[in-house]
């Protein structure tokens, strides 16, 4: 029984600790559920970044519009001659967060096809990759393993979460190899270049502004979101809230769907039972078709809708002739990092922050993008930017 007593004694001691700990803790933590829920929107909203991204939408990017993955918005070029290598056949390593959704699957194929081209040209030797399955801790290990192996001439990282990967990326930078971060960022600018499209605020704003423009004042909008707590998605919603707040639209609710079509259809059906829904705002297009079908099955007119450049949605959009927009989180960004790696390894300048263009697909270019992607599967992204790669269309079609 001694151990039990010991355990209970220490538990009691810890209890005391808590009592004291709690008091010191109160100012910083749990300001009550009500208030924190109200503040939560603000937590993700940084006015300056929001304004910057909205402004970037109107800036003409430098570079050839035919190759948007090489364009850059207001680049600040940095010298990379320290990384220039004479040898060629460089080993490029890539730590991927995951391929757990169709957007990432599409991009990953594009990246691999781009790598093949560069390998044939002799610019890249070996290409190694690891996949962390969306597990931050796993990705930290993956990055460490690459750094420790000492065999990577350049390291590409697509972080699974911004803040949590920061220490690992710093470690990678400290090892002296060029580090290329893309998609989500990290809280350090140690990377040689950080590649990303304009960003979440611009995406959310594109969608929200379209709804505001195309709906009568007083119309109702339902927001469908994937998950809470993911920064790129939270920025989209924060921007939308900002724009909706300044409009006369009524937001019926914001729901988390996990991107599951059945969940989406179910939720939309329930909202339709209780009243009219005039517009749908989505933070990502997964399952957009299910939302549209809910209107069909309920015998309701199509909503004004903001989906994404996923083909299933765009095809449904054309088929129904509904009023819609496809905001884009440029999938072609998956080509840029490997190209950047070869540029850095040959000592060419790259932008320190490589901001790629990010333009929504509108009614006007819908037909064009559908035609270009006619052979592609429905969970493919229209702006994948791999049409000129030799693997096209088989690599994406017969995956």
């Amino acid at each position, binding site marked *: 029984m001694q151990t039990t007593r010991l355990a209970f004694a220490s538990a009691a001691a810890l209890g005391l600790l808590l009592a004291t700990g709690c008091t010191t803790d109160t100012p910083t933590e749990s300001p009550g559920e009500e208030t924190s829920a109200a503040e939560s929107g603000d937590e993700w909203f940084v006015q300056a970044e929001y304004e910057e991204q909205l402004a970037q939408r109107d800036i003409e990017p430098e570079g050839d519009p035919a190759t948007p993955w090489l364009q850059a918005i207001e680049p600040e070029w940095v010298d990379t001659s320290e990384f220039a290598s004479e040898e060629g056949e460089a080993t490029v390593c890539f730590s991927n967060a995951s391929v757990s959704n169709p957007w990432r699957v599409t991009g*990953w194929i594009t990246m691999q096809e781009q790598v093949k081209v560069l390998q044939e040209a002799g610019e890249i030797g070996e290409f190694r990759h690891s996949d962390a399955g969306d597990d931050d801790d796993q990705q930290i290990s993956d990055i460490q393993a690459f750094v420790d192996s000492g065999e990577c001439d350049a390291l590409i990282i697509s972080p699974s979460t911004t803040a949590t990967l920061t220490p690992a990326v710093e470690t990678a930078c400290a090892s002296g190899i060029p580090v290329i971060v893309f998609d989500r960022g990290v809280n350090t600018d140690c990377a040689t270049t950080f590649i990303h499209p304009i960003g979440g605020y611009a995406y959310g704003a594109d969608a929200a502004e379209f709804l505001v423009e195309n709906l009568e004042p007083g119309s109702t909008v339902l927001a469908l979101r994937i998950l809470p707590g993911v920064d790129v998605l939270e920025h989209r919603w924060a921007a939308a809230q900002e724009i909706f707040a300044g409009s006369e639209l009524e937001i019926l609710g914001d729901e988390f769907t996990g991107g599951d079509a059945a969940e989406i259809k179910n939720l939309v*059906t329930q909202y339709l039972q209780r009243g009219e829904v005039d517009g749908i705002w989505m933070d990502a297009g997964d399952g957009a078709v299910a939302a549209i079908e809910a209107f069909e099955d309920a015998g309701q007119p199509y909503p004004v809708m903001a989906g994404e450049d996923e083909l299933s949605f765009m095809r449904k959009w054309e088929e129904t002739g509904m009023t819609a927009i496809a905001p884009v989180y440029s999938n072609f960004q998956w080509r840029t990092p490997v190209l950047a790696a070869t540029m850095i390894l040959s000592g060419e300048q790259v932008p320190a922050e490589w901001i790629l263009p990010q333009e929504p697909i509108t009614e006007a270019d819908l037909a064009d993008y559908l035609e270009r992607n006619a052979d592609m599967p429905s*969970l493919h992204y229209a702006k994948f930017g791999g049409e000129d790669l030799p693997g096209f269309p088989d690599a994406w079609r017969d995956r």
Partner: protein
Amino acid sequence: MTRVRAAAAALFGGGTGTVFALLVLIFAGIFAMNPGFFEGPSLMAFLKQAAPLVILAAGQYFVIVSGNFDLSVGALVGAQVVIAARLIDGEEPRTVPVLLVMLAFGLLVGLVNGLVTTVLKVQSFITTLGMLLVLYGAIRLWTGGAPTGALSESFRTAGRRGIENVPILGQIPWALLIMLAVGAGAILLMRTRFGRILMASGDNELAARLSGGRVDTVRTAAFVLSGLSATIAGVLIGGFAGVSAQVGEGLEFTVITAVVLGGVVLGGGRGAVLAAMAGALAIEALFTLFNQMALPATLRPTVQGAIIIAAVAYAARQRARPGATAAPATATATPS
């Protein structure tokens, strides 16, 4: 509140009664928020969307009552939808052959689960956890990470359409009829000798063996039935909402929760299949209630967790009362 509960308990008695009481409470809550919910069309829409979980609950019931778990159903539902989309690829004539392929695949997965558990003596938690991983990975390996192809209109009929223009109800969904048929079949099955052996094998394995029951055979059959139910659920979910990459994810935990909410004891030997299906209905109704209340989406898991614990604790207390048939000692048993 307590009086309602007491009345409901008196009405239904015992541990399994809790779920019906819970169902009544939730529906009362929905009615208070939105009486319109009980008009024909919206009620039918609710049942249409709840049908897959109810069917899964029936399948899971067989496995749980015989003393096992099936954690692979969510992955199997997802796999079936993806298989359907890829093989049909939008071609109507392929619908029936592909349905047969899916059926065979579902039965095969159930059979493998059953044989690994009974013959290789791997605890079912691990068998089906492993199967979950295998299915999740294999199906993505096969489709290159994200579903390809498309479902045909006729494939989608079962999950999406119904008998149209029925007075008052509007549409009687095929999903509802399938759900009723599966439910009736499950109830009848539990009344056969098979059902009695299944129940006995979960309650007291040795006694079941000694009295001539082929315990391993019925347990394997239970897994096959679970595979069958996942296949039907897959057809309905795919039909209802089409293909998405996330389809089926996490369903295994929802359905096990539903079955336990229905008063079925994990570890086997106790509980009624009707109550298990009512548990699934209660979970779906709970989600509807949250929606009607406009409960902040982030808070819902908390409320859901608290309600599940409370309901199961309440049922356990009911069972533990003198005069109740169940033995409380087994209430905390973990099935293998």
